[in-house]
């Protein structure tokens, strides 16, 4: 879509460090000119993956904070029986916004954003494959979040739950609340699919020479598996939400049983996405853990092949579990047993990974800094979530605990323990790379203590509440049910957790301006992003690195060779082949453009007005067409000052020479 003037160029040669072609300062200046964005509206035209990735992460944390505030309000309401803090109408909106934001606006985009930032650096390239498409993805995500929270603040927040079961979300939800939800989910998932395309292509076709597939960092493997899952899972929910919108707006009756539709169809569509979604959130976190463990134990993660196989296996099996969300709908027993088995089998790859990390920690030299604290928080919390998951996979037990606070506890142990703890650790771990400054270790430890204690205080009692009979999604409960004490404990815990998150944010903000300066590689870690400055320049690397082993910068011979031959005056990327990362061609990527923003606005216009009038999408096609036209036209020009690379096909001999040079270097 945004390929621009893709051109086959002779692949660059590989040079030894001793023979730089240009003086370094000169080359830096020319690269800077080619890759940075200047002029009017620079912020809006920017397509640098580091800026887009950072925006994803920061924006996602804003939605995280809002959704967290919604959770604190819910906990206040549930603190005492028959609480009067909020009424049922607002409470339903709060938990819908909490779930929707956390899943769609925080967890998936923040993991994708970390990938957008880190994957190109980790594979040693200058930008993602399709920079303008990348910007479009961010703008769609931003607009969807603004509209969802904007609508909540004016009193039309969706209120049918983040799962929006029909027919409650169709015939029994008056107004535009659910229409808005359905449209914005579709909008957000376009953004997720864009991220998936970017990361997969970048990881598969832009790896530095020498980084064969079996030398790809575990973090990148985790991202690739995740993004493939996104490509298979997100269309299911987009289809489902579109069906809901159609049912509500033009009476397609897809889910209306009186007209031959089926209420359970939605549940199948939703959970076919919804269960992989959990792993879409969780698998990138496994990548964080691997990176942090390797850096903090001073050794490569044990069992690389087993780790990779486990990630891939998890990605496959995750698509065979969705019915365990529907064990109480009266499906046939044999089918349910199959899904029980699949739900249990998926613990094996996860278990293998945990054993590998434990082996790494046991045989490495442990350095206990804040990121590693979060990894220990991950072990001690996520394992509980995983084990309660095994309990939930059993059909008979599930009929008791399904849709109760036991499940609320389970899912937060999995998602906070399994994904948010590693994410917070990852933010601390990569903070010096992103900002050039270290976070405060002391404040970080305090924040960890609060987050960890608050988390367990909040969610552990919920296991018991579920067993005692408290269903989910209730806005209040009667005093005689005896759930008051545990709920009170849980509410207290939620505020401790809130303080912990606040400390984390304070730490990040303070460190951004006043933190100690970090060098290029403060953790002496192994992956390629630590080879460039902190924060990295717009062009990523002065010279694209060449990888000599699975351990990246720790491998013998690392940093001794680099790639030359890329034109420093043009936005050129080096494309390598899928398996062996042998140089194939130089690839000219499109530069800054305002077109992605206008495209995003047009798409959002189509989705938003489509709720009110069928003419909306028709009218919206005009600006959409114009934006795309501008996108295509502008991507062809040489606005960088450089000329378009020639499209003449290279002589075969050059390729062969470059390949052999890369092999010699590796």
């Amino acid at each position, binding site marked *: 879509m945004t390929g621009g003037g893709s051109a086959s160029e002779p692949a660059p040669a590989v040079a030894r460090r001793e023979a730089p072609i240009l003086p370094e300062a000169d080359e830096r200046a020319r690269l800077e000119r080619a890759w940075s964005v200047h002029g009017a509206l620079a912020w809006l035209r920017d397509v640098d993956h580091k800026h887009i990735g950072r925006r994803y992460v920061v924006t996602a944390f804003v939605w995280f904070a809002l959704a967290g505030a919604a959770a604190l309000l819910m906990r206040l309401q549930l603190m005492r029986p028959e609480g009067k803090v909020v009424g049922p109408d607002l409470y339903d909106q709060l938990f819908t916004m909490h779930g929707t934001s956390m899943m769609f606006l925080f967890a998936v985009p923040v993991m994708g954003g970390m990938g957008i930032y880190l994957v190109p650096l980790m594979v040693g390239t200058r930008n993602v494959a399709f920079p303008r498409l990348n910007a479009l993805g961010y703008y769609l995500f931003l607009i969807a979040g603004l509209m969802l929270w904007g609508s909540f603040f004016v009193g039309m927040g969706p209120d049918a739950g983040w799962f929006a079961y029909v027919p409650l979300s169709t015939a029994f939800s008056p107004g535009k609340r659910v229409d808005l939800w359905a449209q914005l989910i579709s909008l957000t998932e376009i953004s997720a699919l864009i991220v998936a395309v970017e990361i997969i292509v970048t990881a598969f076709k832009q790896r530095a020479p020498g980084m064969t597939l079996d030398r790809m960092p575990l973090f990148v493997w985790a991202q690739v598996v995740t993004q493939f899952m996104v490509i298979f899972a997100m269309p299911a929910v987009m289809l489902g939400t579109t069906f809901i919108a159609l049912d509500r707006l033009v009476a397609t009756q897809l889910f209306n*049983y009186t007209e031959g539709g089926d209420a*359970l169809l939605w549940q199948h569509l939703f959970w076919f996405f919804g269960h992989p979604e959990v792993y879409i959130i969780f698998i990138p976190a496994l990548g964080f853990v691997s990176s942090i463990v390797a850096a903090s134990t001073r*050794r490569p993660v044990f069992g690389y092949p087993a780790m990779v196989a486990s990630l891939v296996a998890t990605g496959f099996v995750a698509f065979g579990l969705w019915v365990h969300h529907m064990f*109480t709908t009266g499906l046939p027993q044999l089918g349910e047993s199959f899904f029980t088995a699949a739900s249990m089998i998926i613990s094996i790859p996860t278990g293998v990974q945990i054993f590998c990390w434990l082996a790494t920690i046991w045989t490495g030299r442990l350095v206990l800094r804040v990121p590693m604290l979060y990894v220990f928080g991950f*072990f*001690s919390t996520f394992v509980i979530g995983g084990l309660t998951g095994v*309990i939930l996979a059993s059909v008979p037990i599930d*009929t*008791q605990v399904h849709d109760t606070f036991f499940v609320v506890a389970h899912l937060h142990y999995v998602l906070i323990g399994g994904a948010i703890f590693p994410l917070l650790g990852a933010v601390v771990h990569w903070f010096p790379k992103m900002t050039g400054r270290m976070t405060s270790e002391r404040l970080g430890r305090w924040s960890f203590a609060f987050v960890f204690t608050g988390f367990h205080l909040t969610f552990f009692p919920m296991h018991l509440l579920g067993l*005692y009979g408290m269903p989910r999604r209730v806005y209040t409960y009667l005093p005689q049910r005896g759930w008051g004490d545990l709920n009170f404990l849980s509410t207290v815990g939620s505020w401790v957790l809130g303080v912990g998150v606040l400390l984390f944010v304070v730490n990040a903000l303070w460190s951004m301006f006043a933190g100690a300066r970090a060098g290029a590689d403060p953790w002496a870690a192994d992956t390629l992003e630590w080879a460039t400055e902190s924060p990295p320049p717009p062009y990523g690397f002065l010279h694209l690195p060449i990888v000599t082993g699975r351990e990246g910068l720790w491998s013998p011979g690392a940093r001794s060779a680099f790639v030359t031959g890329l034109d420093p005056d043009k936005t050129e990327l080096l494309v390598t082949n899928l398996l062996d990362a042998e140089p194939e061609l130089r690839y000219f990527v499109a530069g800054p453009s305002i077109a992605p923003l206008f495209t995003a606005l047009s798409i959002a216009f189509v989705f938003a007005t489509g709720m009110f009038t069928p003419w909306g999408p028709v009218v919206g096609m005009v600006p959409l067409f114009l934006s795309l036209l501008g996108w295509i036209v502008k991507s062809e020009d040489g606005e960088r000052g450089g000329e378009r690379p020639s499209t003449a096909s290279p002589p075969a001999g050059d390729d062969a020479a470059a390949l052999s040079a890369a092999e010699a270097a590796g």
Partner: protein
Amino acid sequence: MRTARRRASALAAALGTALAGALVLGCTRRGALDPAGIQAERLAHLWWWFFWITAVVYVVVLVLALVPALARRRRLAAPPTSAAEPLAGAPVLPREPERERRLVRVVTAGGLVTGAVLVALLIASVHGGSAVSSAAFVESPLDVEIVGHQWWWEITYPNTDQPWKAATTANELHVPVGRMVRLKLQSNDVIHSFWVPRLHGKMDLIPGRTTWHWFRADRAGHFAGQCAEFCGLQHAHMGLVLVADPPAAFDAWLDAQRLPAAAPANAAELRGKQVFEHSSCVLCHSVRGTIAGARNAPDLTHLASRGTIAAATLPNSSGHLASWVRDSQNVKPGNAMPPNPLHEEDLQALVAYLGSLR
């Protein structure tokens, strides 16, 4: 450094104690862990198997994870204040092929043990599931039909011989002790889920489908139940009381429920009946034997025989009844019953009449 460590261990100890305390609480027999019927008993049995096995697994993993952290304190990094420095240039561990091979064996063994434990749990689960469902197939169960409404339960005891004598009630399900009950579950609007934790797991009520649920109460008593699937504004107050009676008492109750409503016994009740019949009540409620025959709201024929009103939300006393009739939105915002600004005497008479519907 030392104080920080001491603080950390104190924190860990406090947390551990709190969790242990919570666990002890968890062992008290409540809700699903205090079964009063054969299905719930077998489920609780299975639960404890799963609980203890997973608890052992957790402790093993936790020990494996934390021992290196605690045992190797002297290798901890320099104090936090020096965080800006690069990590003490620690070299990558030299390869020790022998040790790596040993690790491979250990991790493989760990994976195999995980698999074995999971297979065992899977077998336990399937076995437990069939134990629960096999308990159900008996001759002549008691048939009860339940229809879910936003936000109450319509309960019908069909009478195959004399269909006009079916008993209809709401939100209070009576069953005989020791007899299998077969519930036919349907929904009138959105998806609900029937759940009485002390008797059995839950089963969804799905519009357009019919689901079945079997259970047997082995102990007499009142058991709380609730809708477990989010069904809109008053999902929280869609309660249910299950009353398990000895068979004789149950038969007597059912016979009484099949009768039409009692006639007013005094002037106040008579006036109450007139208020009832000439106000908005009759548009939604029915009282068998009177002109009130609408089916949009709970059947009130034997309202006074029920222990609660508003779907197990309020005790059935005249005071609660009066305030419910006058402004039910105060108790259950969003429920379908409109506020009824009746005159004081009319309200008293109406409550007296409702109180006479035994």
